[in-house]
């Protein structure tokens, strides 16, 4: 069982991801904006984070930049989640330090596989 932080301002989206991840026997910590995500990350030290890009207070971009600048979180696997599907966004997100990029609506089997792979790689 792994600890996973899910940050999304949309409660239904959070519930969907929680459902998928708990279905894979993981513990889910929720945050509804970027600042709360950073606080919960420091408090709970999860094994993986799923960040919505568009969030109030601090968006996912600001959060990943802060995380990658912090030695404690530099190697944390982080999945970007976005409802924007314009060209070039994926490349931008990966360049910023996200480990994976998923567009809404989520393809659940693919999301499961990516989370599993990222957790396996970060030290099984």
């Amino acid at each position, binding site marked *: 069982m792994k600890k996973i932080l899910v940050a999304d301002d949309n409660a*239904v989206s959070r519930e969907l991801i929680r459902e998928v991840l708990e279905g894979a026997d993981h513990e889910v910590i929720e945050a509804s904006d970027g600042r709360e995500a950073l606080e919960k990350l420091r408090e709970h030290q999860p094994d993986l984070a799923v960040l919505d890009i568009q969030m109030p207070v601090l968006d996912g971009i600001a959060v990943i930049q802060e995380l990658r600048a912090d030695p404690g979180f530099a190697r944390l696997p982080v999945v970007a989640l976005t409802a924007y*599907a314009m060209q070039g966004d994926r490349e931008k997100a990966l360049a910023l330090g996200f480990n*994976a990029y998923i567009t809404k*609506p989520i393809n659940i*089997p693919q999301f499961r*596989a*990516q989370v599993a*792979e990222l957790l396996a790689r970060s030290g099984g």
Partner: protein
Amino acid sequence: MSLTPHENSDQTLWEVVEKLHAIVEASPLAIVSLDPKGQVRMWNRSAQRIFGWTEDEVMGRPLPTVPPDRQAEFGSMVQSQMEGRGWLSGFETIRIRKDGTRIEVSVWSAPLRDAKGEISGNISVIADITDRRRAEAEKAHLVAREQAARAEANIEKRYRELLEAAPDAILEVDSRGRIVLVNVQAEKIFGYSRAELIEKPVEFLIPDRFLSSHPADRQKYFAHPVRRPMGTGLDLSAKRADGTEFAVDVILSPYDAEGESGGRVICVVRDISERKLAEEQIQTLNYHLEQRNREVERANRLKDEFLASMSHELRTPLNAIIGFSDLLAEQGDFTTKQKRFIGHIRQGAGHLLDVINDILDLSKIESGHLELKHEDFDVAEATTEVLAAIRPMATTKNLQVMNSLSDGLSLYADRLRFKQILYNLLSNAIKFTPSGGRVSIETSQIRGDTCFCVADTGVGIPLEEHEVIFDRFRQVGITTKGVREGTGLGLAITKRLVEHHGGTIWVESEPGKGSRFYFSVPLQAGRGETEGKVEASQAPLILVVEDEGAAQELLVNHLEEAGYRTATANSGVEAIRQARELLPDAMTLDVLMPAKGGWDTLREMKRTPATAAIPVIIISVVEERKKGLALGAAEYLVKPVSKELLLEAIGRWTKTPARRTVESPE
């Protein structure tokens, strides 16, 4: 010359001789005779006058008048005459006088014979032509001088003409600022006659508002006169006779006139009022154009922003609908009815997602960002995939779907886009055909183009709507469900996709009689039937490295269906051994594997000369494209990989194999 009368001569003979003697002596031309030895025998008075020697000085002596440089010429002349030949007639040569001066002469000369016919010497008549020559030379000189003078006059006339014909006004101003010379163009642009301008101060032509400063400027210029070219950025104006102002460009060029201190200035003045006007018009036009461009840019940006936020706003709720219906469907404890309801929700949401993607797609096509990926593919196979996707719709409405495509038909086009075209036309046909009707696909060849037809027995389209149905957001009539379905973008996208392939799309239809939508796909120029295809035995060999059985099987299936030969490996160690032994044309590589992971395998492949050149296509669950490409991977695909993406990636690195004929399951 002296004649000694013969002892026995009679009186008459003596008289004749005397008469002859008088004639010879009176001759204005020199008459000289030489004996056979070349010594002077006759020397008349004119000879003495011309050459200066007296008869006594030359008689019985060789001729003294031949200059050294003419001795050879003279010798041969005398010799030939002594042999009875050698007439000279007006032969021009040089002789010398007693005082040493050289004169030009003209010589008539002939052999002289005695009574018995023997050669007794020669006789020459010599004219001094020095004066004539001098006169000729003088005349030539005079003619030349006259011609030179005429030419000089011509040049001056030409300069004058040049000055007057110059397209710019030219004025000469003296050191006191007075106009001393003007040309025709100056009269024309200022509106004064020459007489009105000469001797006037140059300020006469300057607008009043500059008058106070101009004399000072002029004096400053004369203090430091330099050549000032046109277009130096000064905004200059001049004043016409009628007081109106006009824009000018001015060149000033100082020069020193002879015998005048302080120098003069040549002013070349060009009327640029028309150019100024045109410049102003261009500026205004540019300004408007810029404004319009800015508006277009703004509108485009707004459109992009709108599309992005629309996509976002719709995807968020769709995420919940699709996600939760998928989760529900995974939980098995539902009644058949409930399962069907969940299916409807999932299908409706899927359709909505298609609509969103349609709009983004059309926007991409219209902004010119669409790139077609051409390949050879089997039409029957692609059509079967489309039919499988639309069959549920047809079944729900109890429609019969007929596929009359001939087997073995192959196209060179973008396979995905071809399927999209077919899907759009078929789903339209189903939407507009009442229950129990029929939808069919047919194909034909027209002048080398492959022509497809999607026909239905639906509501039909009135003639006046045949064009506009291909416009965006144009829907004609209502579907059989009694409501408008979709976004009205399907045909607009379809038309643009067909046209991107170089084909055309049109419809034949009448209300109540169904519709027939046609589209053509041209044969690609320069593509032969056999190009790019290889025999099955030589088909490229792909090594599939994947430890998970199901995934491995799927990859192998995709590749073999496309005509590739395959080999498999279940671990990194095995992969390296196989790669060395088989030397495959390409290799797919999973990253997460037991006994040497994908990254280590890739590193070792690239380090080993025998396998370094084999293209490696990484297939991973994790997006680490940069790392993969940095380690030498040819392609990087993220799982789950569609068949299209896989074949496309493999196709970029290998030859296209001959595709297997796929039986139509229709």
